[in-house]
């Protein structure tokens, strides 16, 4: 192969597809959110909790994809370069969530009992604890922290994606160097902001309860779902004969599938660690979290998660053939995305002591539709592969050893 000619010709087409999906996503998103707003009037708490699940679901995927992108840069990974722009397009949705966070901020009083605690509910001891926690759990600190989280996420996501796109012009080494530095140096900031965001927005739904692994648990779920979404995007690119799809081979899918397998096991490890230690300790300030999730139907949701969020996908993904086939890999990944929703739903909804509310569907479709539309919109007009990355060649040549 000649050495100095670009590996991918200069007339490699820019991505102009996905128009239908983008428009459909936008329409579905807006209509569904409007319906959710209607639902809010009738059942404010159930609706806002459902919305919180949808918000954390899609935000968790964007941030999971950001961590994946950063870790790959930090490690100097090469195999993933052909799917990196797809990864970046998931990351590109991050700013949208600042806007979508507003309902949670404005409606905080409806779902977070610590905003205006009721002495009749918490009792004297609970009120004393809440007074202790007030330094952390109060609306100004909550708002300020949210602003810091979003500032970190939007800045890091913007730079990680922006520098990669700027390298499309001239392929200079300096962009790779910058990406590697930010990829490594930014990870601690993402780790702590994501952790405390999960404390603020999910753990504090029960303000008397706490678990030091909770941040990792929420990260693990979002990370698995983001890998699953990347598997689906790669498979879609292949099946739709998009130009980038012709560059992705079985070995890339195989690696994505391995990631999915590994982090499903990681999620289960974290989930088990949390559950087992709380269960065995059986302490009054921790056990209510489990007791609540053993009432009525929730018990079976827990069993469902063990079997279908861990056992089944883990066993299925052990197969080499299923990981290397775009159709089967995408099917498994889609399943993982569904069960991850169930996981978050199981984390959030039991606090309401209420049954299923239809806004769970509309808010999921609303946030999801807008996320998909926004992601495609940001991908359009650019290249769907980082075509001047100095290591693209290694990625194209990648084979499983």
């Amino acid at each position, binding site marked *: 192969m000649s050495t100095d000619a*670009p590996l991918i010709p200069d007339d490699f087409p820019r991505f102009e597809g996905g128009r239908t999906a983008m428009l459909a996503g936008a329409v579905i998103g807006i209509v569904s959110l409007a319906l959710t707003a209607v639902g809010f009037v009738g059942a404010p708490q159930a609706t806002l909790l459902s919305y919180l699940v949808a918000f954390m679901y899609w935000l968790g995927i964007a941030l999971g994809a950001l961590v994946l992108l950063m870790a790959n840069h930090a490690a100097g990974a090469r195999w993933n370069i052909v799917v990196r722009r797809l990864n970046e397009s998931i990351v590109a949705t991050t700013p949208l969530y600042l806007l979508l966070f507003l309902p949670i901020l404005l409606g905080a009083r409806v779902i977070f009992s610590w905003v205006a605690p009721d002495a009749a509910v918490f009792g004297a001891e609970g009120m004393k604890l809440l007074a202790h926690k007030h330094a952390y759990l109060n609306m100004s600190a909550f708002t300020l922290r949210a602003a810091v989280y979003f500032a970190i996420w939007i800045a890091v996501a913007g730079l990680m994606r922006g520098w990669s796109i700027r390298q499309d012009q*001239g392929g200079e080494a300096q962009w790779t160097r910058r990406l590697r530095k930010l990829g490594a140096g930014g990870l601690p900031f993402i780790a702590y902001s994501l*952790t405390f965001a999960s404390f603020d927005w999910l753990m504090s739904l029960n303000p008397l309860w706490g678990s030091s*692994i909770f941040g990792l648990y929420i990260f693990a779920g979002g990370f698995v779902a983001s890998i699953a979404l990347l598997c689906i995007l790669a498979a879609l690119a292949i099946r739709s004969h998009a130009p980038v799809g012709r560059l992705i081979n079985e070995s890339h899918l195989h690696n994505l599938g391995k990631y999915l397998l590994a982090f499903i096991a990681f999620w289960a490890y974290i989930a088990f660690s949390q559950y087992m230690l709380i269960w065995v300790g059986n302490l009054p300030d921790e056990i209510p979290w489990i007791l609540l999730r053993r009432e009525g139907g929730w018990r079976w949701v827990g069993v469902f998660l063990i079997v279908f969020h861990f056992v089944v996908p883990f066993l299925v993904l052990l197969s080499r053939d299923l990981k290397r086939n775009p159709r089967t890999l995408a099917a498994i990944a889609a399943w993982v995305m569904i069960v991850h929703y169930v996981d978050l739903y199981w984390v959030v909804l039991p606090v309401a002591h209420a049954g299923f509310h239809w806004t769970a569907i509309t808010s999921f479709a609303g946030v999801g539709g807008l996320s998909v539309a926004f992601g495609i919109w940001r991908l359009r007009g650019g290249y769907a592969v980082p075509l001047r*990355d*100095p290591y693209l*060649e290694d990625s194209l040549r990648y084979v499983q050893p």
Partner: protein
Amino acid sequence: MAQTALEARAELDPRPLMIGEQDDGSLNKSILDFVWAKPSKGWWALFLLGMAGTGLLTMAISVTIGKGIGMWGNNIPVAWAYGIVNFVWWIGIGHAGTLISAILLLFQQKWRTSINRFAEAMTLFAVMQAGLFPILHLGRPWYAYWLFPYPATYHLWPQFKSPLMWDVFAVSTYFISSFLFWYLGLIPDLASLRDSSSTRLKRRVYGVFALGWRGSARHWHHYKIAYLLLAGLCTPLVVSVHTIVSWDFAVAILPGWHTTIFPPYFVAGAVFSGFAMVITLMVPARKVMGLKNVITARHLEAMCKVILVTSMIVGYGYAMEHFFAWYSGNEYEAHVFKNRAVGQFKYVYFMMWTCNVIIPQLFWFRWFRSNIYVMWIISVLINVGMWTERFVIVVTSLQQDYLPSSWADYHPTWVDWSLFTGTLGFFGMLFLLFLKFVPAVALSEVKELRHELEHARREHPEHAHENQPVMDLSEMEGAKP
């Protein structure tokens, strides 16, 4: 200014994995020579030191068994002290080996090749030291077999609800599979030793241990499958062992011990201390044994990065523990953390933070990852720091419990210190024997890597610089003779 991929890569490519023009012969020589050479005076001096430590250990064990564990500094409420601290410290060190061998293999990290043998041997010897402590702590170690479920006429049955019991199975399984993994990797190299033996006796002995290895395609085929399968099976084991060790504490409801972040935080801490110990041992060994061509600045830098990552995770664990000690509003929990910071062992606590979280931050800078002297000092400090971490967790959580009337200080005795320094000597002695009798670097894997690199160079001559000595190693290691 636009750059072609080649120009960009010339700037970005990592340091070489192998220095200089090597062939199978030169690799044989550089790796096997140390085994065939007569032991140097330095080796003997260190070996005698190790023997002395082993002697001290034997004496301390005799005292412990003869007079009972009353000879230790343990008291009530500090019923767990050095015995558990040393156990956790050693077993943590034992995590680097299998991590490098198994997990880095699954991650397709080629730099593991030159350091895996070394780290695996370290793992085995560290686990041996670790195993001594809980057995001695039994008080009547001659009944240690009661830990295993067997059909006894006394109707003894182990308490399966206790993580201490799970430790028995986790650690013994870990030891067995690490040993198998290490030995399986050794077989081709033992055959190389057999084939280069100078006397009949040596040939016979190495021949027996090489299990008739002929290096045929069929042998390699089976070998590769077995190796990959063992790597896959060892990966959950690495995680499980230190997870169960963390449960020894977290399953109890004691403030300072009972927190859900313990499992991943302990595993990260184990990898952290294990990599630090690999650097502590490897930096001098590669110099003395002339292995600088195969264990290059690239390897050392990669290990420093793993140390940085795991240090950040350990720091995250500390941050979570401390946050929840406050956030939970539990006054006992808060008291334990306050006692750590201002109590009898505040200096130990200070060392823990300094060595494990603050000093490793230096590895963000390339200069520190490239200077072997600095790197070695940091690695020793991390070893110290991880010992103090276990001390802080074990002792300070017990020292001041719910009832102030039962609080007590803790003072280790000379037997405690002798046991600990004795295991250091025993470990060192075993390690020196390992260096002397088998190749410290996986020769067959390094040869395979060399072929791969050469093959790549022939196919893509434009990327030749990736495997060229782009810089002289001495330049990168700072001041050096």
